[in-house]
């Protein structure tokens, strides 16, 4: 019996600890960036204000990888870490940690991820466009030089954008702008 087991061995799903940790850190930053952008970027504010008064957005990695929960409520966009949500309004699901990692590293842009069907969405797809536009603004705010690796169309550099970047990387990244 034992020998048969050894001969026809089983392959268990391992874990990608390093990649998961990196994605987790990036998601934390991204969450705080959303929170900050709602306060300091008028375009993000305009988009988010057009959502219903209470709105739950989750970006998660299947099957139970890192998760980023954003809740719009009480007139603020709040980042709530890895809080599990049932019946969230919009859930953007990345099908595997590998591609989430590539996306965070700028090896694949979000449109590429969409085109290659590496993600899917649950819930109210009408607002998905709005969320993606916010995501573009937020990533522009976060990432200075290599923005083009992450999004389709890089907006021209403006003084406000530089100011926002400074605010974000000094205070916002710690979650202090809320």
């Amino acid at each position, binding site marked *: 019996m034992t020998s048969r087991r050894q001969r026809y061995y089983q392959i268990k799903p391992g874990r990608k600890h390093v990649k998961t940790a990196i994605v987790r850190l990036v998601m934390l930053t991204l969450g705080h960036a959303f929170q900050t952008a709602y306060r300091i970027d008028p375009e993000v504010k305009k988009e988010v204000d057009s959502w219903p008064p209470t709105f739950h957005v989750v970006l998660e990695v299947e099957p139970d990888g890192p998760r980023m929960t954003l809740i719009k409520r009480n007139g603020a966009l709040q980042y709530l870490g890895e*809080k599990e949500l049932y019946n969230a309004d919009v859930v953007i699901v990345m099908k595997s940690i590998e591609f989430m990692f590539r996306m965070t590293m700028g090896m694949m842009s979000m449109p590429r991820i969409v085109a290659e069907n590496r993600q899917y969405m649950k819930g109210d797809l009408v607002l998905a466009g709005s969320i993606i536009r916010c995501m573009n603004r937020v990533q522009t705010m976060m990432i200075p030089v290599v923005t083009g690796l992450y999004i389709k169309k890089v907006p021209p550099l403006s003084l406000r954008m530089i100011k926002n970047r400074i605010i974000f990387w000094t205070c916002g990244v710690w979650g202090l702008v809320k």
Partner: protein
Amino acid sequence: METIVGTSNRVLAVDLTTQEFEVIEVPDIDRKMYIGGKGLGLKLIYDRMDLEADPLGPDNMIAFMPGVLMGTGAPCSGRFAAVTKSPQTGVMASSSCGGPFGMALKTAGWDGLLVKGASENPVYLVVDRDGVTFRDAGDLWGKDTRQAQEQLAKEGEALVIGPAGENLVRFANIASGHRFLGRGGMGAVLGAKKLKAIVAAGKAYKIVPKDPESFDRIKKIATDYINRNPWTSQAQRKYGTLSIVNITRTSGILPVRNFQDGTSDNAYKITGEVISEKYDTRHHTCKPCTILCGKKGKFDGEEMPVPEYETVGLLGSNLDIYDPVAIARWNRLCGDMGMDTISAGGTLGWVMEATEKGLVKTNLKFGSPDGVEEALLDIAHCRGFGADMAMGSKGLSEKYGGTEFAMHVKGMELSAYDPRGSFGQGLSYAVANRGGCHLSATMMVMENFMCFLAPHTTMSKARWTAFFENMWCCVNSLHTCLFTSFAYTTELTIPRFSSWISTLIGMQFMPGILMAAVDFSVIYRKMWQAVTGISISKSEFMRAGERIHVLERYMNTRMGVTAGKDTLPARLLTESRRCDKKNRTVPLDKMIAKYYRIRGFTPDGRPKPSLLKKLGIAA
């Protein structure tokens, strides 16, 4: 108009058997040790009552206690407490209400009203500045709470019971205006005493604080905090407590089908956001109030109070019904009949599941609104099977079987928060003094509303449960609205300027440091200090909260509560839910042992003699 500076320190004690009354003076030492409100009520009863007394007998006492802040114009202070031995649980119960009776009693010059004995015939009391008069209530008996209050309106602000209270329904409540002393079956206590109503003719005195300058200063800060805080100034003010539905349904703590599930796809229909838009809701609150969470709306063209969250949770999703109009109608019916909507919903939930399982025969079933209204009327009038349902889910399950899905703790039905999505709340239900009560430590607020604690761990839950129990005992003794704590604790300098994630780390990993570093009770304490003129330190104040909690616990243990009764329904401890991917049940034993240790209780759940001595409860 005469003025009372600080507190009058006079409590009116009424004996219904002899139809006499006396005045009790509250000494300053009791005031400092027990704050007022609930704490003082407990102390008065502890000193006077035979703890073995039958809750529905003449020996049981009930105390109505407006707090120190009542009448001073402090934000959200229009509330009063009632304390008695509950017929539902057989242990002490306290309840809080925002009706107009409290203000009338206070401005009639009384710091409290203690009722004992029992009358032969139905009576009602009229309280004024000179004392009390006993009137015959023959023509009031049998009327619902709205009719009775209309009839008594010219004599003052009334506190009345409905048919449910008269028929000794175990979860009958007491109404004042459109607010209720909801839980613990207080209506049945008055019903057993044949006391239909208490009317207070107020406006005899004006209440002014001892130190008006510092009071005004602290009041301004408090109001600013409330108007600045998003929870109080946006969520509660715009949508009332129904704003919680959106939190509980997404956190998976909304009871569905008698706690079989934790969320429902249809629950969006009963969220405050939807209801306030669809039914054109307006403010309809306690007075005075700064938060303005009470609401009324137009349901099918009829103006009705908007049900509170717990009502919607228990009479709605718990029965798998998501029709706001039906829920609002049942809510008003329960109010008219004088019944607690939480326990009524919990009981109906049990009946529906028992019907499904074939234990009882009724026409009630999950998801169908047919027959619910008749069932509620049957309960209130104890007709037919209604007489059994009037015993609550504990009585029912002991009679017909099915205790494992009777969702109660110590006989009191659980409120609309499923502890399998909020472990701390599970602990707080289990050890709550009055039974399955969500307001004892409100851990779900920390775990799921503000997300300052991870809901699915046991780490530091016992610490915070004990801490918030103490603190809320203080708040309920002041007496002010619990919702003010959203603002008064999170708008303080340190919590306000720290990020969510650092607060999370602080609360989760270093509760001791946080409790020492942040003076969470500062607003409450300073307010009390300014009104009474008695100085009190942070540790004395929190100690007073602990004293009140432990006194109540001590009384309960003498009424038969031991560690064995501090438990949750079997469903929560063994069954996992469909909505959870992993199996999740409440790991109660681990938390409870730790909780007893932190509290200074013996392993069988009694306060140690050394603790009682330290707190000055027993010599």
